[in-house]
């Protein structure tokens, strides 16, 4: 009996055993990055509601009173829940400007890694 239970648990344990990564980051780079992370989380949570309330607001069929009520409702939601406040910062340095979206890195970090050959498929341009 116990052996059977152990086998099952062993199998489960073996499947998910993450190897320790070389760069173990337990803190965010700075407080601004942390705030950005919070904003992203809230935006994810309230995304559906915002979409629906906006659908009521931005159409010509429903009566205006209803739309005004919807306006007030959406204004009452937490300010950090709107996606407009999210800033695509660099993932490694938290730099707010000069960030390439595909790699989520600022231009300086990108150049650093590309020169060391650590960006897959990136090569110095020459033509």
């Amino acid at each position, binding site marked *: *009996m116990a052996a059977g239970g152990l086998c099952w648990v062993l199998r489960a344990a073996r499947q998910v*055993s993450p190897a320790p990564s070389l760069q173990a980051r337990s803190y965010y780079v700075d407080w601004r990055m942390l705030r950005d992370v919070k904003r992203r989380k809230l935006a994810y949570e309230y995304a559906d509601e915002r979409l*629906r309330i906006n659908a009521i607001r931005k159409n010509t069929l429903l009566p205006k009173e209803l739309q005004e009520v919807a306006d007030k409702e959406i204004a009452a939601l937490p300010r950090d829940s709107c996606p407009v406040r999210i800033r695509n910062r660099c993932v490694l340095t938290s730099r707010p400007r000069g960030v390439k979206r595909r790699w989520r890195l600022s231009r300086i970090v990108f150049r650093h890694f590309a020169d060391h050959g650590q960006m897959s498929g990136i090569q110095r341009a020459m033509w």
Partner: protein
Amino acid sequence: KPTLSEDSTTEVASKSQEGTAETPKQKLLDLIGNMKVEVSYRKKLQQLKTREVKNQATDKLEGMDGEGAVLQRTTEDIKRGKPLNPELVKAVSAVASSLPLNKTQTESELLAQLRRHEETTDKQKKGGVINIRNVISEMAVKRESPAQRGVRISNRISMDFDEDGQRIKSERTSRQSSDSRRSLKVGRRLNIFTKTSTETENALQTVSSPTIWDLEFAKEVAAVTAQPPRNGFEEMIQWTKEGILWEYPIDNETGMEDDAEFHEHIFLEKHLEDFPKQGPIRHFMELVICGLSKNPYLSVKQKIEHIEWFQKYFEEKKEYLQEI
């Protein structure tokens, strides 16, 4: 039916024995050997036992007729239980000779009775485990015509493939099912297999009982036995298990299990029953439904939730709506 076949075989047997001077024992053995109880195909089960009989008979028989008899036996189907007690057989021959009717026929009938008797006593001794007659009664040997056989062989060899590369199995399985004239559920219970229901209970018990100590032990064992990957393949395997690497060939629908049919996605009007039939709200909701039906990214549950949210919202704002 059995008597008719017995008659035919006894005639054959008597013909073969006319030219020989054999002891009654040998004659009886010949009779027994050549007897057919039913015209059925019971070769495999009886071949073992008939070999015993043949060995006994060949030891005793001499000359050409012995060979002829053996040949006869090999060509015929023989049904046989245990070889009968030779004294009983002698007694049977004596009884048959005393009776006024056809001697050989009575002999054969008496021997058949004896054999049946022996069989039943054996069965009672064993406890009636398997009655082969019951097993075989439901079976019927297929008669393959050469044309069918050719088709079957060609099917096996050709290996028809679909466009996707999957073998066409449906034809084969349908043929197999139509071949077996009897269905699976027909017939008496044979009681050959015993139910093993205790195993499932044991499995259920083991799942519920792992303690924290068991978990810790399992984690320790996994950590100790997990060797670093020896090559790139093992590394990729490890990454796939962790979830870092996708599974190839890439399935576009990993993690997305939508069991609903297309009509549940598109025909969403049935969820609009609680809304008013006329008016701007209905118009609005129909637009919402039109948009949802074209949305491939949401599951059916999410779409229904969407519509229900609107319903709740409009319920709450009824006072504002009444003014209009």
